[in-house]
C-alpha cells in the first residue's frame, strides 16, 4: 500500500506536540515574532515548499452541533506542518536538515513543549514520535522539487524578457543570443 503522506515525490509531514503549562503565550509570541524580526527560518531548510506553525488551544464545541458530549483538548498543542521534497531521500534526512536549520530556535520552540528537546540533535526523534499521518495528501505539482519550481519560474521570466528583447532579430543573431542565454 502506498504511503498516504506521499504525493509524487512530495511528502506531507505533520506533528502535534503538547505545550508546557504556562508556555502557550510565550511560544505564540516567539513564533509570531519571526515575521516581526524579519526571520524566515524555513528558508534554511531548502527542501521545504510550504510550512506552518499553528497553536491549537482547544477543540471546537458548539451546542448547536448536537455533539453528544463536549470534548476539550486538555493540553494545548503545537502543530508543525511541512510540505517537503523527498527527491529520492527519506523523511529522516529532511528532519536532520530541519534540526540544523532551526538550531538557533529549538530551545525557544520545542523547549516549550512537553518532552521537547533543547538540543537540535534530539529534534528528529521527538518530531517522529509526535508525527500524525496524512489520511489524504494532495500536491498539485508533486513531481517538482523546490529548486525545480524556482528554476522554472526564473526561466519563464527570462524567456518572456528574451522574447521581447529579440523581436525582429535576424535568425543567426537570435540563435547566438538564445544559445548564450539558454544553454542546453
Amino acid at each position, binding site marked *: 500500500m*502506498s504511503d*498516504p503522506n506521499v504525493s509524487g515525490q*512530495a511528502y506531507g509531514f*505533520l506533528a*502535534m506536540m503538547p505545550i508546557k503549562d504556562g508556555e502557550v*503565550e*510565550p511560544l*505564540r*509570541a*516567539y513564533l*509570531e515574532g519571526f515575521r516581526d524580526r524579519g526571520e*524566515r527560518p524555513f*528558508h534554511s531548510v*531548502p527542501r*521545504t*515548499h*510550504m*510550512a*506552518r*506553525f*499553528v*497553536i491549537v488551544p482547544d*477543540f*471546537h464545541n458548539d451546542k448547536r*452541533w448536537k*455533539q453528544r458530549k463536549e*470534548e476539550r*483538548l*486538555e*493540553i494545548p498543542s503545537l*502543530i508543525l506542518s511541512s510540505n517537503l521534497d523527498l527527491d529520492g531521500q527519506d523523511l529522516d534526512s529532511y528532519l536532520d536538515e530541519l534540526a540544523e536549520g532551526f538550531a538557533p530556535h529549538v530551545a525557544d520552540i520545542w523547549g*516549550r513543549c*512537553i*518532552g521537547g528537546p533543547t538540543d537540535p540533535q534530539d529534534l528528529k526523534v*521527538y518530531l517522529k*514520535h509526535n508525527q500524525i499521518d496524512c*489520511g*489524504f*495528501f*494532495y*500536491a*498539485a*505539482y508533486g513531481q*517538482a522539487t*523546490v529548486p*525545480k*519550481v*524556482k528554476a*522554472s*519560474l526564473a*526561466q*519563464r521570466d527570462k*524567456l518572456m524578457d528574451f522574447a521581447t528583447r529579440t523581436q525582429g532579430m535576424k*535568425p*543567426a543573431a*537570435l*540563435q547566438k543570443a*538564445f544559445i548564450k542565454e*539558454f544553454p*542546453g
Partner: protein
Amino acid sequence: MNPVSTTTTAAKATATGTSSRNIDGVAIAITVFSTIKLWGRAFLPILFAVTQRRPALTKTLVDLSFIHFARWSLISEIPWNGQEQKKQKLRYTHMYFESNFNGGWEEYIDAFSHILTGGMAAFWGSSYGFPKALPVGPFKEYIQVNETEACHYYSAYPEATITMIQAALALDDKLAPLKRSAAKMDPDAFAAAYKKMLTDAQRSL
C-alpha cells in the same frame, strides 16, 4: 530561552479575507479542525484510500488551479510524551485539514462550495456541525468557527501562484528540446523552431 513578550497581537484581516498571519506573499494558509461522528471513523479512511488510488477524483482540484498542497489527517489519539503530559483518551476522532492556496479566502470557499459540492459532503459530511456546502453563507461561518490562525506561515516561492508554477513547469518541458538542439541547427531552422516553440508555449507565458 530568549525572553519574549507574552503579549500577542491580533493579526489584521487583509483584503484576501484572512488574517495576515495566514499569508506569505500570495500564498494563503487555512487550518481547520473538526470533530468526527462515529460513522466517519470508518468512512473517512475508505474515502481517503479510494481518493488516493484514483487520481481522476482529484481532477477538479487540479482544474481549479489554486491549491498548491492540501491534506486531511485523522487524529484519534494524542501522542504521549511522558509523565508531565496527562494522558488523554479521545472520545471522538478529530480531523485536521490544511490547504495552501492562492487567491482570496472568500473565493476559495466559494469555489469549494459551488464546484466541489459533492466532494465537500464526502470529506466533511461526518463532521459535527457541517451545514452542507451550499448555501455558502452557513458553510463560511462553519469554517470561520473551526479555523485556527497560523502563528507562522512560509512559502519557498511566495510570489508565485499555482497557475504561474504550472505554466513555468509546462514551459520547461517545451523549451528543453530546443535548448538541447539549438546549437546543431542552421539559423533559419532554429528561427522557425523558436517561433513554433513560442507559439506552442503561448499559454505558458
